[in-house]
């Protein structure tokens, strides 16, 4: 078994040989969507090759997105809206709850 540095772009894994030449590994099984460029490790065994993405950059991106949504919801909770039977009012303590979630995300307590 070998573990190699690997990158993925356009759904295709690529490794670099000892001469610095890039070699495509189209039959590597990607353990990620492979839509965006990513770096990770290619695990090659006697049965095949599996690409494991380095999830830390993705996770940071995800955290930032969730926090941005939390900010938006927090702001909405402060805006007086006309309540109609079709709309559920936000709970009164939503602003506080969102601040708590954001604080936990910041501290990465939810990972």
């Amino acid at each position, binding site marked *: 078994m070998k573990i190699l540095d690997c990158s993925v772009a356009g759904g295709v894994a690529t490794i670099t040989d000892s001469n610095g030449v890039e070699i495509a590994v*189209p039959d590597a099984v990607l353990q990620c969507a492979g839509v965006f460029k990513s770096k990770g490790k290619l695990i090659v065994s006697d*049965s095949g090759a599996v690409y494991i993405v380095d999830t830390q950059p993705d996770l940071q991106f995800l955290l930032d997105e969730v926090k941005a949504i939390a900010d938006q919801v927090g702001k909405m909770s402060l805006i007086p809206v006309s309540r109609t039977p079709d709309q559920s009012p936000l709970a009164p303590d939503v602003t506080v709850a969102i601040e708590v979630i954001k604080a936990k995300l910041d501290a990465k307590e939810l990972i």
Partner: protein
Amino acid sequence: MRVSADLENGYKFNIQEQDLAYLPDGFKSYLTPDAGGVIFKSQAILSDLLVIGQPFCNVAGVLIPAVKTYTPKTKFIGLYDHKVTTSAEFGSLISIADATRPRSYQWIKSTGKTFYANHIPQLFQGFNGSIISGLDGTFDWKSKTFAGVIYAGVKN
């Protein structure tokens, strides 16, 4: 010369001092050191990492591309996965089809206890209704005679 072979690791030889006077230089040039003896160079030079589509060996002038990306359990098994093996006669890489082809000038006899042959028995060659799956014995370069055991079996 001590010779052993199986379908996982291929051929392994142990050359004794008394062989050196008769061992052809050609055959010696096919060999390279390995743990516990010498093996065929043609097998040893294979990479232990094969990448799909990348040529990894040359059989009679034809480059063979890897059928998948993997690290074969052994180099000999990696060759077999691509229908290639080593020739016991020439030390080169040949197709399995070529290895199984009987040669009219070769014979194997048995006394009931010991097998004798006028060549180093070729793995995968037809034998007793099956194929040669392993051997262990000696090859006397002076008389060019193999004496030992030959196993018949199938590839797992």
